[in-house]
């Protein structure tokens, strides 16, 4: 029983990483209606920027804010330079563009900062949280920040004009244009916000997994899985999805005899697909009715 609780707790702690990334995934999906394969790499690059700023002697929180600003601007820049020209191209061509961006960002980061792992500081400390050694104060802080971002995003998309306009631009671009939404800039804004949220995710994840150019590879797979499980249109779903994937995976690894540990990830993914078969729009996603 103790092992069970411990694994659930450890799962929640790891799940926080996935939830964080899943939020960024949902953000970009809301804005552009695709999954951005380069998102993890962009987050990694942002994290390196903040690390570099701190190496130059800028205090943590200033580096944090500066990084958010740089990432926001960077996201917009990437959209304007690379993806706006592809707006008329087929969807699959856009996906190829994401893959190209992935290769570029990863390789440039490797050249600038090399591939050795780097320690990344945490503002929350890493002592045990509430007496449990399984969740450190950093992980608790991470869960806290994720929830804060979630509330922020919810309010933004639900109640602000610009948030609503962004949703409209992504869901029904034609109609949105008709009511006067500048859909092109809404997409750029979405890229900027997704990039900034990704930066927060990277900065929170780096103290746990260590900073290096390949740090987000695995995280992104889980982030996608979590976002899809929760429903791509729902930030809340993405966060819950993240925690569920973290816990699922640990329990599968611990309790399925024989192959559980070797096949942790495949089992978790299979479970997600099973859920999707029954709820094709994810746990919290709105099902869209097809019309002819």
């Amino acid at each position: 029983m103790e092992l069970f609780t411990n694994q659930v707790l450890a799962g929640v702690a790891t799940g926080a990483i996935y939830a964080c990334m899943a939020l960024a995934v949902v953000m970009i999906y809301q804005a552009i209606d695709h999954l951005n394969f380069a998102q993890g790499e962009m987050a990694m690059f942002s994290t390196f920027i903040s690390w570099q700023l701190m190496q130059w002697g800028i205090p943590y929180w200033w580096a944090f804010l500066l990084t958010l600003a740089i990432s926001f601007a960077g996201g917009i820049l990437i959209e304007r330079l690379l993806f706006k020209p592809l707006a008329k191209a087929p969807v699959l061509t856009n996906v190829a563009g994401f893959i190209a961006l992935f290769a570029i960002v990863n390789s440039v980061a490797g050249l600038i900062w090399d591939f050795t792992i780097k320690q990344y500081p945490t503002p929350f400390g890493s002592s045990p949280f509430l007496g449990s050694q399984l969740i450190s104060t950093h992980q608790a802080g991470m869960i806290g920040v994720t929830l804060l971002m979630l509330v922020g995003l919810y309010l933004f998309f639900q109640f602000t004009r610009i948030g609503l306009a962004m949703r409209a631009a992504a869901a029904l671009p034609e109609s949105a244009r008709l009511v006067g939404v500048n859909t092109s800039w809404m997409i750029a804004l979405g890229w900027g916000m997704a990039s900034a949220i990704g930066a927060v995710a990277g900065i929170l994840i780096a103290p746990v997994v260590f900073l290096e150019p390949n740090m987000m590879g695995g995280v992104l797979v889980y982030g996608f899985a979590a976002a899809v499980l929760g429903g791509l249109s729902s930030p809340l779903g993405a966060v819950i999805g993240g925690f569920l994937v973290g816990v699922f995976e640990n329990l599968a690894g611990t309790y399925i005899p024989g192959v559980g540990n070797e096949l942790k990830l495949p089992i978790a993914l299979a479970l997600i697909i099973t859920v999707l078969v029954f709820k094709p729009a994810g746990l919290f996603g709105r099902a869209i009715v097809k019309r002819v």
Partner: protein
Amino acid sequence: MMLSTRSAAFATALIASIAVSGSALAQKKYDTGASDTEIKIGNIMPYSGPASAYGVIGKTEEAYFKKINAEGGINGRKINFVSYDDSYSPPKAVEQARKLVESDEVLVVFNPLGTPSNSAIQKYLNSKKIPQLFVATGATKWNEPKDFPWTIGWQPSYQSEARIYAKFLMKEKPDAKIAVFYQNDDFGKDYLKGLKDGLGAKASMIVAEESYETSEPSIDSHIVKLKATGADVFISITTPKFAAQAIKKIAEVEWRPLHIVSNVSASVGSVIKPAGFENAQGILSANYAKDGADAQWDNDPGMKKFYEFLAKYYPEANKLDGSVVYGYGAAQTMVKVLEMCGDDLTRANVMKQAASLKDFAPDTLLPGVKINTSAKDFAPIEQLQMQRFKGEKWELFGDIISGELNN
């Protein structure tokens, strides 16, 4: 002043003429890839893809050969180092190996990296009788001169290192309850086998085996699970990122096992320091090379040469990265073999010389560790020394141990 220069020049000329007549007697012999002016060396590295961290090895080797060329080359011949990217994908490694052999026409393929990639090209290179020299992997299978006379390893094999830990544990902690944490690939499995072989009848000391995949972002849950087994020895057969995560997590959950970390992840700069010195006190490992991040070698003559080389030929290198030290040692071994070949630069002779290294000690190996090979022994480095982490550096202890598999 004038006189002395002149006499020096005369002396040089004299020596040169003796050397020339000597080599004329020995008759120059070449295979494809070698000539009076050039020796072509091929190499395959994962410059891109999941294992791109190791690309540094290839870059270090390139810089080292640049240094050799700047200093006049080997017996007057310049090294032409052709290195290709295989992204750690075996089919790509086959393509690149064939390109090196059939299109670039290299004399040898030197230090290609990765067990899967080397396994993929081994049969091809052996059938073409191209030396596959000093492969950059610790699998045991490179030491099979009978079946694969053209393939030779370099670093100590994973299995022999694991046996050293097994011996140590049986002697120092015979009642140990061992938890093994390993990467689910050739590297992890080889170690595990070595450990079990080394423990022999006492393999029941292993109370838990847990594997992880490199795609996992965090390994926390494995550590929680292993802690719950009540083991008091933790053997970490991991690559740097995961080794550092394990060191940190074990400290966080206040588990205090005897912690042994594999040599692959014993680097102070790229593992221990990021994981936190305070978390790493008392960790054990074994090593054969000096650590570029360890202050105790600052005045070591060999490492001084290494640092000078970095400053001049590879200034952008991160000396904390164990791969740089590795590439330097491997390249130095290659140069040594080519020097021994003299003017007989046939592939057969290169292989013969690679298999007749006697007590060769590259600058970066630990004092006392020497490279020895013979026609029956294709495992160049077989010695390691145990070390314990204290303060901010490794302290070597005990004798230099040979991990030869035939004992």
